[in-house]
Every structure is written in C-alpha cells, then in structure tokens.
C-alpha cells in the first residue's frame, strides 16, 4: 500500500524468496551450524589418536565448507533480507522494529563468526603440533557462534508463526520467547547435525582414497555421527509439530503437495519418511560394511537431506498462511488492524503509488488491475508461477467467466480456502477486481499474444488492450 510494487511477472515474488531462502538454510545448516561441529570432531579425533589422516580429512572438508559458507552462504543470508524487503517491505519493516536488538546482536555475533571461520581455516597449518589445542578451541568457539546466529534468527521465524502474547503486550521478550521458539530451535539444531553428517559421508569418500583404511574409518565415524543425532531430531520434530497452532495444521496437505497434489499429501509424507529411513539404512551399512558402500549410496543421504530440508521450509512457510505474521499481518501485506477501515473505504484511496484512487464506472479494468497488484500480486502472477488465469480456467473451464460469481468468490475465498487472506478492499474494489479477472479470459498477455491467438479465437487479440495496458502507476523494476 505504501511502497511501489516490485513484481516478477513470471517467476512470482514468493519464488524469489523461496529460492534464496532454501539455498541459505541448506548451506547454513549443512555446512556451518552442523558442518563445523563435525569438522571439529574429526580434527579432535585425529589429535587424540595421533593420526594425521583425520586432520587432513577434516581440513579438506573444512575447505569445502569455508568456500561455500563465506560466499553463497553469507550472500544468500543477506539475500533473504533484501528479497523479503522487496516483496513485502511492510513485513520486513515491522519485523526489524520488533527484533532490532536481536538482529543487532546477531550481526555482532555474525561478524565474530566470520572472523573466526577465516581464522580457523586460514590458521589450520600454522596452529599445528604443540598449538593444535588452540586451533581446536578456535573451532569450538566458532561452533558456538554459528549456533548463536541461527538461534537468534529462529526466534524471528517462530514469531512469524505465532507471536503469542506479543500481539497484546508488544514486548521484545514476549516476541523472542514465543511458543514456537525453543521447539523449532531444538529441531533445527539436531537437523543441522544430521545434515552435516549426510554431506560428510560423501565428502569423506571424496577426500580419501580407496587404498587406505582411512576411507572406511571415516565413513564409520560419520555414520555414527548421523545415528547419534537422528533420534533427537525426530523427537524435536514431534515437539515442534505439537506447538504449531492447530488451524495451521489444516494447511499441511497443500503445504506439502501444493494444490495440484493436495490429495496425495499422505504419499508425499510417506516418501519423505522413506527418504529418512534410507538415510538410517545407509548409516547402519556405513557402520557395518563401510568398505563396500558404493559411491551412489553415499550420494543418497546428501540428496535426501536437501529434499527433506527443502520440503520442511516450504511447509513451514505455507502453514503460516494466510498470515505473514500470525494474527498481525496477512501475506498480502495488510495488517489485521487495517481491515475494518479498508474493507469499508477501499484500499485504493490509501495506496500511495496506485494509478487510481477510487473505482468509477469508467475505470473498472484499470482499478481492477491496480487492486490485483496491491492485494494479490505478493503471491499470484497473471500467467506465471501460481498464475491467476490458470486457476480461473481450472475453475470455470471454457464457460464464460461471470463478474458476479467471481466477485462473490473473492469476498468469500477465505471461508473456502483457509490459507487465503480475506479480501482487503471494499465492495466496489471487489467488483472492479472481478471485472479485471473476467477480462483475462479473453485478453491475451502481450508476450504470448502470437502464440495464443489461434487457440483462443479471433476476438482475443482485439480485446487484449484493457488487461495488457500498463497503468501509469509507479512500479518497481
């Protein structure tokens, strides 16, 4: 409402956050929060057993973690912030105000973490022999700091899912110690350890040679690591699931499978469980017959970890719907508090950068497209990811779309689909939006006009103008 709209017409706004966010979580958990404890454990074991092969392996694994974490890991972390602020500046601005001191502390810890990771890796060869103990201490300190950065950010994720008493008291500590916080932190910590083991299995194979007994020893060590953490991870997941607000659990089928595979949610859940079971099996084999495990078998855990972590993140983000901050702000960027005013007066009069300020009989399509940008475009595109035209086509097929029907649907969408926010505008705006959406049935978007013309009939091109017209609003690019 108060920022120019940045919109990715094909990729979809939320896909941008999803790609950057998933990449960051996988790298952070696998290579930093979980990865560094694994490396330190390997290094410590080598120091204790006076076997330099362990130290060598630990250093090589650390090189991988170091390069990835200080480039893709660090930058995607900033990227989450930048992309969320582009797509949903209202939510980002609000979260920053609630969590300033957490963010500020996290930043100081992060600066320390980066300094430590540089120190730890770059001093590996100089702090050897007599000074090995110091080097391991640096590693342990690094473990603590990288865990603290995650622990601080997890508070914000928990807050978004359930801010609890903050809604009424607006206190910082209520925001941090929300109901979701500790269970989620327990889950992420143990998940990170398991994930690092999954990566460690493959890297152990990669950085050792088949001729030495080191390969088998390393695979056995890392397999034990996975199996030690896995039960705790399962318990933490159950605890976490238990504190998710009950109405959100209803979103789980769509969260897991998207609407297309909503009905198959059980199968997807089963497949994820089977993947986890496969990891257990391979870890067991890694302990009993480490020398005979083929390379492919060692690739499965790392892929399984990526898939499970990705599915978890997607589900967590989706369960929270229709909110971006539960009971405070909807995913469409409007606060719950804005609704009494806006559903009466409309969103257009209050939208600083909209092309029109009110719906009139002459500007229905333009006003409708503006309402679409303001109220729908955070999650929907016209023809791209989560495209609205395809959704309506699936609903009404080839029958002529009806303004009144769609208007009625817009006004009651949140009753039908629990993850949709209520429509934020007033009745006139719902009408204009419905008219705009109906115009999409016959209008052809400019980029695909030539391709679609024969299929959608001769009238299509003639009518494309209203929907394709670019409103003279201030838009982002």
């Amino acid at each position, binding site marked *: *409402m*108060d*920022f*120019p*709209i*940045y919109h990715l017409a094909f990729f979809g706004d939320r896909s*941008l956050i999803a790609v*950057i966010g998933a990449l960051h979580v996988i790298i952070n958990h696998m290579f930093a929060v979980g990865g560094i404890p694994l490396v330190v454990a390997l290094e410590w074991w080598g120091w204790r057993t006076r076997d330099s092969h362990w130290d060598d392996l630990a250093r090589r694994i650390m090189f991988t973690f170091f*390069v990835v974490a*200080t*480039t*893709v890991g*660090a*930058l*995607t972390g*900033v*990227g989450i*912030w*930048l*992309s969320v*602020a*582009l797509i949903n*500046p209202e939510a*980002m*601005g*609000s979260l*920053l*105000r*609630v969590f*300033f*001191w957490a*963010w*500020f502390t996290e*930043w100081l810890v*992060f*600066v320390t973490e*980066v*300094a430590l*990771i*540089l120190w730890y890796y*770059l001093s590996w060869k100089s702090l050897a022999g007599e000074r090995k103990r110091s080097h391991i201490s640096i590693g342990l300190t690094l473990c603590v700091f990288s865990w603290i950065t995650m622990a601080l950010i997890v508070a914000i994720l928990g807050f978004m899912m359930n801010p609890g008493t903050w809604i009424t008291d*607006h206190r910082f500590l209520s925001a941090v110690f929300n109901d979701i916080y500790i269970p989620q932190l327990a889950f992420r910590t143990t998940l990170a350890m398991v994930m690092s083991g999954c990566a460690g299995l493959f890297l152990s194979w990669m950085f050792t040679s088949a001729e030495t007994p080191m390969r088998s020893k390393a695979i056995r060590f890392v397999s034990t690591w996975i199996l030690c953490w896995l039960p705790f991870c399962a318990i933490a997941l159950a605890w976490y699931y238990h504190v998710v607000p009950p109405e959100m659990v209803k979103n789980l089928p769509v969260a897991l499978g998207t609407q297309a595979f909503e009905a198959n949610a059980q199968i997807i859940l089963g497949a994820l469980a089977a993947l986890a079971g496969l990891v257990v099996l391979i870890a067991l084999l890694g302990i009993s017959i480490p020398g005979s495990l083929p390379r492919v078998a060692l690739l499965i855990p790392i892929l399984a970890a990526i898939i499970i972590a990705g599915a978890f993140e997607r589900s967590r983000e989706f369960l929270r719907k229709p909110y971006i901050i539960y009971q405070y702000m909807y995913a469409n960027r409007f*606060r719950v*508090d*804005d609704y*009494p*005013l806006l559903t*009466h*007066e*409309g969103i257009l*009069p*209050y939208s*600083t*950068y909209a092309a029109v*300020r*009110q719906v*009139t009989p002459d500007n229905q399509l333009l006003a409708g497209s503006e309402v679409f940008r303001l109220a729908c475009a955070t999650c929907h595109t016209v023809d791209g990811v989560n495209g609205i035209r395809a959704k309506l086509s699936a609903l009404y097929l080839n029958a002529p779309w009806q303004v009144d029907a769609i208007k009625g649907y817009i006004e009651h969408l949140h009753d039908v689909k629990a993850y949709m926010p209520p429509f934020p505008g007033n009745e006139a705006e719902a009408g204009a939006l419905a008219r705009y959406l109906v115009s999409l049935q016959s209008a052809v978007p400019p980029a695909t006009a030539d391709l679609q013309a024969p299929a959608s009939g001769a009238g299509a091109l003639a009518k494309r103008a209203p929907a394709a017209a670019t409103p003279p609003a*201030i838009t*982002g*690019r």
Partner: protein
Amino acid sequence: MDASTPIPKDVTLPLPVPPELLVIFHVVFFAMHLLFVNLMLGGVLLTLWYELRGRVRADYDALAHEIAKTISVNKSLAVVMGIGPLLFINLLYTSPFYGTTTLIGDAWIKIIPLVMIAFLLAYLHKYTWERMHAHKGLHILLIAVVAVLLLSVPLIFLTTINLMLFPELWPRVHGFVDALFLPNVLPRYLHFLLASLSVMGLFLVKWTQTPYFPAEKLFRDLTRLELRQQFYALAFGATALQFLAGPLVFATLPAAGMNLRTMGAVACGVACAIPALWWLWQELNQPTSGAGRRYWHIIGAISLTVMFMVIGRHLYRAESLSLYQAQIAARTANYEQQVEEAKKGVFPQHAIAEKAAASAPPVTPASGYTSPLRADKRFAQGDAIFHQVCFVCHAPATKLIGPPILEIATLYKDHPEGIAKWAQAPGPNKRPPLPMPPVVGKTMDELTAVGVYMLGIGDEEAHKAAPAK
C-alpha cells in the same frame, strides 16, 4: 521535494531505539564497512594490475599473489560489516529506502548473485595460482571478471542511496539506468574508486614493510623500498586526485540537503586531508626503510577526513529528507487514527468527501450549516484536488503540519485566488520548522478551486465553532 510528491505511510510500530543512537551506529559502522570495501576493491584492482605486470617481471606475479591473499579476509569483512549499516538505514529511512529499492528492484537484488559469483571466482583465482601457471591469460581473465563484478556493485548501492534522497523524482525515473544518470551518482563513484586505491596503497605501504611479509623469500630483485615507493606514490596520487573529485561531488549535489552543518563537516574533512597529502608527499620524497615516521599521522588524518565526510553525508541526507519524513509521520498518524476509529465503526470524513466529489450529491456537514460556497461549481473540483495534495498537511480545524483550513479561510475570506497564489509560490513568512513547498503541476484555476473549497470548509468550521452566529 515539491507538494505533488506522493507521501507514503510508514510502518506503524514504534522505533525500538532512539533515532540518535541509530545515527551514531550508522555513521561509525558505515565507515568501518567502507574501509573493508575499499581494501577489498583496491586489492582486486592491484592484484589485476600486478599480475598483468608480472608477465614482464616475474616478481610482480609473486606480489600479485600476495595481494590476492588479502582479498579473502577483506571481502568477507566488507560483506558482514555492511549488514549493520543496512539494518540501521532500514530503520531510520524505512519508507524512502524500501521505496527506492522496490523501484530499481531488478538491479538491487542482482547485488546478491553478482557478489556471490565474484567471491567464488576470487577463490578460484587464488587457489589455482600455481595450477594455472601455463594458462596465465585465462587466470588474469578470472581476476578481471572479479574486478568488473565488484566494480558494478558499489554503483548499484550508490544509485540506490542517491535515488532515495529524491522521492519527487520517483514518478519520472524508469529503472536503474535512468537513476544511474541522475546528477551526483557518477562523481560519487569516482570519489569512492579513488578512495579504494588510496586506502589500499596505504595498507600495502605498511604491510609490505612488516616481517610477516616475506619479501626476501618471494622476490628475485624487487625490494621493500621499491614497494614502499610505489605504494606511497599510489596513495599520494589517488589522494591528490580527490582534490578534483571532491569538488566535483560537492558541485553536483542538489541544493535540497545543503546547509551550514553539512558544509562545516565537509570543510573539516578537507582540512584534515591537506596535512595528510603533505605528509604523503614528504614520505614519498624521503625513501627510508620502513613505512616512515609520518605513517600513522597520515592514517590519523585520513581517518578523520573519512569520519567527517561520512558525517557530512549523513547530515546532507537528513536535511534533504527532513520535510518528507515529517510528512510521512503526519500521514501515518492520521491514518492510524482512522484505523482506530474504523474499529469502532466510525469512518473518515475525507473518504465520504471523495465519494461525494465522484458522485455529485452534496453532503450536508454535521453542524447542520451548509456553506453557500458548496453551490459553487469549483467546490467539488477543489475538494478532489485537496484530497490528492493538500490533506497531508492541512485539516479543517486542527493544525497538522500546516495551519488549519479555518485559519486559512479567515485570512483569505472572499479571495480564493489568494490561496492559489500562495500555493504556487509560498511567501516569505514561512513558519519553521517546515516551510510549505510550492505546489507544482496544478493550474491557477485548479488551485483557485481548492481555494473555494477551503473557504467553504472554513466557513462551515467557523459556524461549528460559534453556532450562535
């Protein structure tokens, strides 16, 4: 700023810390971020330069390798030290900053992949130094690509931070390239590049003289003294050129944010740079072993210069956005009041007025008295324009940023043109702290219609206040 600039509402949660504290944090940590960015970029450029020269003289290749090793640390610290300032600016300038980044969002978000790829290539370059010895051209190409990528990132930041100062230009700016060529961006970029060379030169002067730098082991005939002289020359040259680039930046600054305090800060910065330049010149002309006894004097003076310039930069920004920020605050407060009233079932008058303007039937005000001016054909038009432009600062009977309509109507009784004239060119008796900006983009007739509307509303408010009359 002009009166047609769209005024957004702010995020409504209160700031968690006093803004003064955020300003101090921002100035201090931004200077630190800048230091590491300068070291990183200077490092990349000098690595490229010496690796190229290394094709003629092998010692320079070894030197380039040593400089390349500094990039790993400096680049990581540059990124992490940048996060704090980003946090502070997000809070201090929420509306202007997010507004700007969404406007040039495609370029803004590209910062992430650009930096990511640059960092990965920098590691590849560093860790394949020996292995790619037979393919030197390709190896040099790697660091050249890193240089291009990392040179483009500050340009995106500068364009963003510059565009943020001018919300009145947003409706006219179409994308990144357009914003890039606004005055001041390219001069500031030049200023920044010279600073990177100067800072890295100074760093290398000292570093190549320390025992940690194994010059004797690395080089066949390149001496520490030679290096000292080269890096002092670089630092001197780049700093001297700042005396041309600096005035260029200053001259292209739009007048909006200029005030005595900003000029004072910049003048102090320049005053510190003069002795630094003199000491640099002396060190350059007295080749001795070690960095020289004036080294820390130079570092101190240049640090002061940077600090003053960063403060000046902040003061300029605060000044140029002050009116805009105040208007945002006023509009936000107004909106929040409407939100609270709507929860109780009371809806704002202005929306009703807007509907009236659109659908013609006149609304009878609550007092029961109807001004005869409502019959004037211009009243409805004035009403509409008032609610596009003026309502941000003026309310019927209460003082927002500007005086209430009631007061204006008393002053200009029967003279709507007077209001129009004032609006086009507000007179000299502007009231501090926020003078009214001229309304642009509206004709005299349109503004006169606003005058008619204001007189009408003022008339009704006067009757409300004294119904007996």
